[in-house]
């Protein structure tokens, strides 16, 4: 316990990085998810195909492989393009950027499915009722589709977020000084790896438990007026 | 004198403070078809479910061919003394449900032989032969390898009846067997039940089908608010209802 207190700043810094990374990638993945759902539901064949390929690749390749590809390979690619075109000099992609970008894109695929399912879950009749009331497209989206979509998407959203939060731990493998990395470093230098990894374990558990409770409260709020199954 | 096929004495059932059954006693001799009528909430389904202990009655006793289903109290909760005895007696008290309740992951044939093979220990071959005969009887010989979800409601209910028959029950309990069916499918199920009555099966039928009660039953019982309000031969009962409640019920049903 004393050891943990001694290293509390390092752990705290790691925790902050972890949360920042998770939130940054969440913003990206929700954006990607909305775009993906729109593409999957659109009438355009090309958009369907692109969105389909996107979710298939993400499902087919493990997160860490993609993170490493973006971090190591992306770096080289960006600099080769820079050298070839002369548009920019040597650029370094940070671990944080690589991690946020990759995890954001990966979970964008999961959010795509969540949002697509949520939109499909809205009873057609309600949309038709909106149209027949004379609502315009944007008004229909804002007043009828969006509020209901939020409700149907919440369980999937919560699930994705919890997984996403845990997935950020993988970015420590490419050297981002997040919670896992800092705990591991402290553990290694003090010879108390169990103590520090256990601390990381408990902190992650606290993060997911708090998220879980928050999400449940949100779900209760948004499921008003809906019969419980 | 032989024991009656089924005798129940003073069956009571409460859910919390609410007493649904207020002491029901009745006897069914072998070959009796007892139609149990009553408005919704009269406790008729609960009564049927108390007989085979799908609901544990708060009080009362059930005898099947003279054998008492032994009950005991444990920390204020009634429960059977011997669950093996209960299982054995249930296997002789086949039930047909309102919602069919076929096992959805089994084919029609598997549904019918499940009880005989795994409860009664009938050899599989013999059970299959018998099941085929029962399917012929309910008019579904060509559906043996279908899954329940691929059958109509009326067909599912006929399979459920075949499944009940396969146990060679002493008494058959029907819990509103036609209530979940589309009107045009009711007839096929009632026809099968009529045939069973003609064979001399002992049946307790909770139903809303007045014509069935009047024409087929040997005894009709009218339940009201958890009590037997009127009972007797259907011919008398339907011609001269004795109580206001039964009169009101009949006029509502017509």
């Amino acid at each position, binding site marked *: 316990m004393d050891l943990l207190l001694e290293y509390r700043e390092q752990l705290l810094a790691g925790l902050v990085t972890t949360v920042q990374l998770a939130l940054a990638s969440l913003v990206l993945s929700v954006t990607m998810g909305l775009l993906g759902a729109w593409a999957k539901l659109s009438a355009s064949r090309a958009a369907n195909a692109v969105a389909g390929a996107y*979710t298939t*690749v993400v*499902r*087919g*390749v*493990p*997160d*860490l*492989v*993609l993170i*490493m*590809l973006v971090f*190591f*390979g992306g*770096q*080289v*690619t960006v600099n080769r393009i820079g050298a070839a075109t002369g548009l920019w000099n040597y650029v370094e992609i940070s671990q944080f950027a690589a991690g946020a970008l990759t995890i954001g894109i990966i979970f964008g695929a999961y959010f795509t499915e*969540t949002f697509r*399912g949520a939109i499909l879950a809205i009873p057609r009749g309600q949309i038709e009722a909106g149209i027949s009331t004379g609502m315009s497209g944007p008004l229909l989206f804002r007043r009828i589709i969006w509020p209901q979509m939020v409700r149907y998407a919440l369980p*999937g959203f919560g*699930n994705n977020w*919890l*997984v996403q939060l*845990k997935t950020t*731990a*993988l970015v420590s*493998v490419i050297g981002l000084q997040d919670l*896992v990395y800092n705990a*591991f470093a402290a*553990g290694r230098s003090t010879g*108390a*790896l*169990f103590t520090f*990894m256990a601390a*990381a*374990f408990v902190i*992650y558990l606290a993060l*997911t*438990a708090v*998220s*879980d409770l928050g999400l449940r409260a949100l779900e209760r709020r948004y499921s008003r007026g809906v019969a419980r199954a | 004198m032989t024991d009656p096929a089924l005798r129940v004495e003073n069956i009571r059932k409460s859910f919390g403070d609410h007493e649904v059954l207020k002491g029901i006693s009745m006897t069914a001799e072998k070959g009796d078809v007892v139609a149990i009528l009553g408005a919704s909430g009269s406790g008729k389904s609960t009564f049927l479910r108390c007989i*085979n202990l*799908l609901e544990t009655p708060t009080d009362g006793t059930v005898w099947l061919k003279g054998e008492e289903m032994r009950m005991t109290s444990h920390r204020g909760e009634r429960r059977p003394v011997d669950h093996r005895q209960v*299982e054995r007696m*249930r296997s*002789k*008290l*086949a039930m047909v*449900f309102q919602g069919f*309740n*076929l*096992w*959805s*992951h*089994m084919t029609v044939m598997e549904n019918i032989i*499940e009880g005989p093979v795994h*409860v009664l220990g009938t050899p599989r071959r013999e059970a299959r032969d018998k099941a085929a005969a029962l399917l012929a009887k309910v008019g579904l010989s060509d559906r043996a390898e279908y*899954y329940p979800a691929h059958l109509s409601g009326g067909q599912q209910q006929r399979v459920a009846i075949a*499944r009940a028959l396969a*146990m060679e029950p002493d008494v058959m309990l029907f819990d509103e067997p036609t209530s979940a069916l589309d009107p045009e499918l009711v007839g096929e199920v009632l026809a099968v039940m009529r045939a069973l009555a003609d064979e001399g099966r002992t049946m307790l039928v909770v139903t809303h089908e007045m014509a069935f009660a009047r024409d087929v039953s040997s005894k009709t019982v009218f339940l009201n608010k958890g009590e037997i309000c009127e009972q007797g031969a259907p011919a008398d009962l339907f011609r001269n209802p004795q109580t206001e409640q039964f009169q009101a019920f009949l006029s509502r049903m017509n």
Partner: protein
Amino acid sequence: MENLLSWFPLDLALIAENFDRFLYGVGVTLGLTFLSLALGGAMAVPLAVVRASCHRVLNPVVWVYTYVFRGTPLLVQTYLLYYGAGQFEFVRNSWLWDPVLSQAWWCALIAFTLNTGAYTTELLRGAIADTPKGEVEAAIATGISKRGRLSRIVLPSAFRRAIPAYSNEVIFMLHGSVVASTITLQDILGVGRWLNGRYYLAYEGLITAAVLYFIIVFAITRVFRWLERRYLRHLNRRREPIARNIAPPMGVK
């Protein structure tokens, strides 16, 4: 052909030369993934039955296990076991140390098993809870014993209902198995990283790994599609084929 190959941005010859290593990596990945799935799955069946029951002591105990293992990253679980166990002298002196706890492979297997066991338990619990009540009542009314109801009615139908969700669990366990490469094991990703490090490459090792994982996921998806066709045909025909839900089943819920 020569020209074409030299134009291609990846050094295919180098990949081909080291392909036997990648095959070894495939063996390690598949071995760890499917062994842990088998062990975790075997463990999950009784635990799910407990979770679906209302046992006053066991149910909360199992719930704590599944909550904890689903609420923390697999990477941290694996590190805790592999790096953490050695902190204690009594562990290092125990008979388990040399053959098991000091071995990366065993630590990975144990951590993966506990992890997938937790997810599978909850997934099965859900499937058991979804058993139509009437089907259980029909079994009771037929006189089938409690045991027979579980083994012949409830579990067979729950296993079938769980197939689509379980296919996700299998794929996510495969994804999760890359954690093995972080504790020195030469799984597919481990070999890919080794190749990149050995020849100072940016893509070859990782892209080969990505392709191999992709092929395995494709094969798993195919197998499950077949399983669903075979074991879920008893369900009503639906408009859409069995939900191809790609949402990860790893949340705490």
